[in-house]
């Protein structure tokens, strides 16, 4: 195999997007995504079983689309890559089954990689960008995760600084949207509702931001208290017979989320002496988050990198390029014995062999 610019197909099924991406080294050839988001809408959040069923149906057409778009054949691949965690166990297992079947069929090496590190790797594929400089702080925000990382080297050294203790930021958007009677997914709806709102109208709490919290949870997040505060505020207004100022509530809620995300990310940059911040995850689509990050980072002398949205949301290309980097740095393939690990730590950038038996955790589903 060409170790310099390996041709890799990546499979991503950790949440509700079925992602197949193909890269040649650091060049993006295709990025096919099928989302089951619409099927989750009526439930107000991602239903793991619904997501897993959709992955099984979407995988093959997505692989075929990715191959056609990249104008390559499966035989041409140097390796297959797959997300083995973290994520929804039952969803991950569909991708793993497919990846193993494909790798064995083709007789190609298989790389099992970490989803969160994949989000960081997405930056490499950003068109016309200079190579990612290390070290960097990375803030990954989506419906499934909210993590702050210190990345010293993409393939060898990623440290988890903090993560959410309860809801992911994207989940908080979904839940507050529901409280406000807005549809799922909540992010874009809250954004729309907040358009004419005053972000300073209501001072909602910033989770884990008090001095006493910061001692133990300097880089951790919590959004469930914020959600409750919004619900309580609305109930109080309704009880007092006042109309609920949806725009102000939405704008103030969003400001509380974004404020805490940006504050903690920039605190990590300052504490670690790292003047670089990388954003990733679907919530990066939030305009206010990008705005406030750029504004405050500029003031703090921190350079911000934001990959295009199609590479920020879950996708297979980020998984493929992470594997391509691993291959280029001489890492051997994973053995075929790995499984899904819904809580795979970020320090495990590549899973070499058997994970912790994650399937037992979802045994009750069937």
């Amino acid at each position, binding site marked *: 195999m060409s170790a310099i610019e390996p041709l890799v197909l990546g499979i991503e099924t950790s949440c509700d997007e079925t992602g197949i991406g193909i890269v040649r080294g650091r060049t993006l050839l295709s990025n096919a995504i099928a989302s089951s988001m619409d099927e989750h809408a*009526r*439930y*107000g959040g991602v*239903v793991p*079983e*619904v997501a*897993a*069923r959709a*992955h*099984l*149906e979407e*995988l*093959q057409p997505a*692989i*075929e689309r990715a191959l056609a778009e990249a104008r390559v054949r*499966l035989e041409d691949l140097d390796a297959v890559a797959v997300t083995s965690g973290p994520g929804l*166990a*039952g969803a*991950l*297992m*569909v*991708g*793993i*089954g*497919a*990846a*193993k*079947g*494909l*790798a*064995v*069929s*083709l007789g190609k090496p*298989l790389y099992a990689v970490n989803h969160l590190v994949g989000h960081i790797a997405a930056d490499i594929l950003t068109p016309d960008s200079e190579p990612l400089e290390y070290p960097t702080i990375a803030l990954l925000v989506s419906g499934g995760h909210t993590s702050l990382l210190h990345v010293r080297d993409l393939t060898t050294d990623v440290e988890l600084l903090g993560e959410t203790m309860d809801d992911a930021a994207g989940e908080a958007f979904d839940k507050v949207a*529901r*409280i406000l009677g807005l549809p799922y997914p909540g992010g874009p709806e809250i954004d729309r509702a907040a358009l004419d709102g005053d972000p300073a109208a209501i001072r909602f709490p910033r989770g884990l931001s008090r001095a006493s919290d910061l001692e133990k949870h300097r880089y951790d997040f919590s959004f469930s208290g914020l959600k*409750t505060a919004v*619900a*309580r505020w609305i*109930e*109080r207004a309704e*009880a007092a017979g006042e109309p609920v100022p949806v725009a102000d509530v939405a704008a103030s809620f969003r400001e509380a989320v974004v404020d805490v995300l940006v504050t903690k990310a920039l605190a990590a940059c300052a504490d670690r002496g790292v003047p670089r911040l990388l954003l990733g995850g679907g919530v990066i689509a939030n305009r206010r988050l990008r705005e406030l990050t750029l504004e405050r980072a500029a003031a703090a002398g921190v350079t911000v990198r934001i990959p295009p949205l199609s590479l920020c949301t879950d996708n297979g290309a980020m998984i493929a390029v992470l594997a391509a980097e691993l291959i280029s740095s001489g890492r051997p393939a994973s053995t*075929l*014995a*790995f*499984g*899904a690990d819904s809580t795979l730590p970020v320090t495990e950038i590549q899973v070499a062999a*058997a*994970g912790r*038996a994650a*399937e*037992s955790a*979802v*045994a*009750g*589903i*069937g």
Partner: protein
Amino acid sequence: MILGVDTSLGTAVGLIGRDGRTLVEVANAEPLGHAEVIGALMEQVLASVGDERIDHVAAGMGPGPFTGLRIGIAAARAFALGRGIPVVAVPSHHAAALAFYEQEAPAQPFAILTDARRRESAVTVYEGLDVDGIPHVVVDTVLVPRAEIDRRLGALRRIEVASLSAAALARVARRALAAGRTLAGSEPLYLRAPDARVPAAPKRVGL
């Protein structure tokens, strides 16, 4: 040659030759761990193949616990895609029925029972083989609470199955191909809707 893959119970992979005979068959009886073992089992089966070409992949479509079931179907489809060959979808109970029939050739109808979790069994009733040599379904697969099985099945012979033969699955596929028949759709035999409730109005948190 036809490669059979089934993860409706344990993990089973097998290969049959042109004449339908079992060439190799490997299995892991554990009802969990499909994702961990599927690749190695497929590789093991391939290792015993010479230059002869695999023409089809038979995928066991269940019924079975969903999480495990999907792993085999995903692996079977991806394997077929990698080789550019078709997948033949086969109800997993057909494999159990054929294996039982090959063993005993019972004259009476019989029921294949597999564990469906939640104190239920998945039950399919068969009677002999049809003209194409495929187990003949008398009562299509249903879920029956275990407590009601005696009453519902009465004197019908019960074959409780805890593991499947992937080679038997491939044999059913071979006969379906020969007869030009389709035995299952592309969706697994889930028999249950996803466990999800449409949420009620948000709960009050209290002032």
